[in-house]
């Protein structure tokens, strides 16, 4: 009995360690953003349909979604209808960071499929995407009124993600408007 005790205990320990390892292994298809809870990286980029560049600081004071997309990205087409729906809901503006794309193709895409974006900054060289830790389109970030990244979704936007992850985090509709003056 005694001579089996140590090997059995060692084996049990190994099982526990490996079980914890398997249980806590990061889900490799979705890597949690290193930027969650941090200030969204600021950027100034040229944008579609305007001479003036887009400055991300202009979004301060409003909650918004930053959706990373490209016409070369098949999943982006799959989520486009959902983005249009979000845009129609008027709950928050969507900024569409066009990642390593051609301006002409992007314009054509939005003409054909509809434009859910308030602004379309053009990240032609992919530098802004790297600053945001983007590793595959589509990715969608939720940014709060203080310019902090609250949530990131990797992959196509779906009604479930919109309901459970985004709407659930948004302040109630009245709170997204400027706070009324307190009655004296």
């Amino acid at each position, binding site marked *: 009995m005694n001579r089996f005790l140590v090997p059995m205990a060692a084996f049990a320990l190994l099982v526990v360690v490996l079980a914890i390892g398997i249980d806590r292994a990061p889900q490799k298809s979705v890597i949690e953003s290193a*930027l969650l809870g941090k200030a969204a990286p600021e950027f100034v980029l040229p944008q579609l349909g305007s001479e003036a560049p887009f400055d991300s600081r202009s979004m301060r004071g409003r909650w918004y979604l930053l959706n990373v997309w490209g016409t070369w990205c098949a999943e982006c087409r799959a989520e486009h209808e959902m983005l249009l729906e979000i845009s129609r809901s008027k709950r928050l503006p969507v900024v569409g960071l066009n990642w390593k794309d051609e301006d002409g193709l992007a314009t054509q895409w939005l003409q054909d499929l509809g434009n859910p974006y308030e602004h379309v900054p053009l990240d032609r060289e992919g530098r802004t995407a790297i600053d945001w830790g983007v590793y595959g389109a589509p990715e969608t970030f939720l940014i709060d009124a203080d310019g902090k990244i609250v949530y990131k979704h990797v992959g196509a936007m779906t009604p479930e993600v919109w309901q459970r992850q985004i709407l659930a985090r948004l302040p109630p509709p009245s709170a997204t408007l400027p706070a009324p003056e307190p009655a004296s």
Partner: protein
Amino acid sequence: MKALCQGNLAARALRAWLLALALVLAAGVASAVDPVELDDPVLQARYRELSHELRCMQCQNQSIADSPVGLAGDLRREVRELLVAGKSDDEIRSWMRERYGDFILFRPVFAARTAWLWLAPAVLLIIGLGVAVRVVRQRASIAANGSEDDDGSPA
């Protein structure tokens, strides 16, 4: 005799040339993903080292040095620019970590969270040595006592 030596020499020279050619070709294949070279050989060496340490987040089991995808190319460009801008290896690693998290480093950082990962091999080695010493001592004492009772059954 002399002729034989020369023949040997020629054969060896030919072999050396063939080997060199094979190596050059192999190097060409190996660097096909990343043909960009930095002018400064010191920076180039650090660049090779660093780009092999950083994970391509899209393909995950390749480093950015080995991956042909666009993002890996963009990340290599960032590494080159940071090197040329005079950043240290550690500064470049933390630049990457700020954006992509610890997962981008193939070599995990030493932190409270990962301490067991780094220390476990040493701890296991010590435990193993302890067990080995005990077993050897037991055997030695059994041999010294001339015991015939070593049939593997519990005492």
